[in-house]
């Protein structure tokens, strides 16, 4: 193999890597897609939902062949505090009709399918290989080393995930700090298909995405999520790693406590836990973005920090897929000119800026500063749930109009009107 030279060696068969491999192979380029897991997807996990737009542009009507679970028809945001919870539900039946807005899915199966598309298009897919290092010549990347094996390519695409060892070895990325990433943990809880539809009040084949804020993280920056799959529920937590550094809370206990929360327990009753997984999320977005191109190398997907968590919308896979697409286009153009220098590969960044990837990350670049605000995780959930409980309680107490109730609760929650106004303004501007 060491005699062969590929147009591109792509490290990591996740959505970024497989998309790049698929598009390059489709154009007839020699592509090697390397995956450290026993199969593509074996090392990958996420919360549970992919927005469809990016993949639908590359593989139109992908849902007809891809292993997706349920199109999400209802979004729910839930505030949790003690025995109380308050939710906002939003349903749009259009979301569950073609071109389906988003799907819940399971990564082991889905990522294996996307890699198989690359393989069908002509890419060579090599699993069970962990890339140890990059090969350099005259300061430019010329290939990779995995154990004793050396493999060469015009360009290496590092799509090796949030812990991107390659982007760091290439000197493009610095080691992230704790507050720039979040730890996600998830359990897959199996339940019969019709039980899930009934419990969540959706038609057979449609699904729900629910995000939680408040007690589920014991006031730490983060939240919880629930996604309905066909025959299972993806239930988990996301907590900023900087918070985990400071607070002595055992993460495995947190998720078990969350399952016992009165807002969750009835939803998963009778279910069987089938898997427990964990992953880091590059939450700081642009502020942790590495140099995404160098001489002979591009960085895509989570490895480039292409994730956006606005609290009400969490995105990663659509960015990964579009960045894989931009990487493939960059390599195709570079190959045509026979030049893989940093200068030529810099068009990758231009493509990312023209696409929604850097446009959206740029637009929400300050969202992380907003979501760092601790009031969001303790004070506000307590305020919202307590106010809602008061609103709906009839017990013979003296009447109070809405304004009085609101002001009374603001006082009781020790919120300042100025603080509320500032947070409201920032939220409205930055999210």
């Amino acid at each position, binding site marked *: 193999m060491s005699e062969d030279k590929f147009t591109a060696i792509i490290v990591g068969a996740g959505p970024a890597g497989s998309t790049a491999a698929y598009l390059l192979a489709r154009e007839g380029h020699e592509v090697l897609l390397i995956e450290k897991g026993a199969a593509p997807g074996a090392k990958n996990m996420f919360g549970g939902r992919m927005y469809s737009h990016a993949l639908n542009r590359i593989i139109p009507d992908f849902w007809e062949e891809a292993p997706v679970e349920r199109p999400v028809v209802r979004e729910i945001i839930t505030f949790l505090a003690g025995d109380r919870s308050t939710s906002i539900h939003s349903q749009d039946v259009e979301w569950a009709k073609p071109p389906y807005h988003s799907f819940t899915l399971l990564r082991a199966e889905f990522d294996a399918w996307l890699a198989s598309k690359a393989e069908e298009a002509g890419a060579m897919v090599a699993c069970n290989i962990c890339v140890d290092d990059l090969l350099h010549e005259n300061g430019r990347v010329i290939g990779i080393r995995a154990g004793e094996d050396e493999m060469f390519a015009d360009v290496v695409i590092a799509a090796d995930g949030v812990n991107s060892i390659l982007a760091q070895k290439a000197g493009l990325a610095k080691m992230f700090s704790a507050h720039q990433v979040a730890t996600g943990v998830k359990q897959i809880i199996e339940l019969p298909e019709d039980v899930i539809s009934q419990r969540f009040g959706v038609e057979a084949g449609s699904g729900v995405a629910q995000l939680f804020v408040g007690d589920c993280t014991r006031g730490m920056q983060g939240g919880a999520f629930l996604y309905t799959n066909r025959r299972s529920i993806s239930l988990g937590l996301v907590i900023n790693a900087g918070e985990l550094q400071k607070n002595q809370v055992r993460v495995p206990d947190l998720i078990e406590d969350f399952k016992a929360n009165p807002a969750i327990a009835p939803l998963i009753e009778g279910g069987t836990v089938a898997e427990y997984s964990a*992953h*880091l999320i590059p939450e700081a977005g642009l502020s942790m973005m590495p140099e995404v191109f160098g001489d002979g190398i591009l960085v895509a997907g989570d490895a480039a920090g292409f994730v956006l968590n606005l609290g009400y919308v969490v995105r990663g896979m659509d960015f990964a897929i579009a960045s894989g697409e931009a990487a493939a286009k960059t390599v195709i153009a570079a190959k045509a000119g026979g030049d893989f220098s940093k200068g030529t590969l810099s068009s990758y960044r231009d493509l990312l800026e023209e696409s929604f990837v850097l446009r959206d990350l740029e637009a929400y670049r300050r969202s992380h500063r907003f979501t760092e605000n601790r009031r969001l995780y303790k004070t506000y959930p307590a305020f919202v749930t307590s106010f809602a409980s008061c609103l709906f309680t009839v017990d013979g107490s003296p009447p109070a109009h809405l304004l009085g109730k609101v002001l009374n609760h603001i006082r009781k929650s020790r919120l300042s009107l100025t603080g509320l106004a500032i947070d409201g303004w920032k939220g409205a501007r930055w999210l």
Partner: protein
Amino acid sequence: MKKMSTEQLLGLDKFVVDDEQAHIKVDKEVCRTCQDKPCTYACPAGLYTLKDGEISFDYAGCLECGTCRAVCPYAGVAITWSYPRGGFGVQFRFG
């Protein structure tokens, strides 16, 4: 649903343990000087434990998330982090 222990949760996962090589190495000398030892709380698999005041780490059962690496106050010194060799480690069946 009954509460599950971390061991029970990890027991559900599929692992191919590399008996020859640990993919994460912990320098207990450095850890001894660490006050908070956040890894003992933050690791989702609960693999960092204290035995007689000393860090004990078991790489079998690692979910390969990198949380320990992120929270370690002596990152890169106390914990030498990498992925398992190809084909080894956790294998998610759902993900």
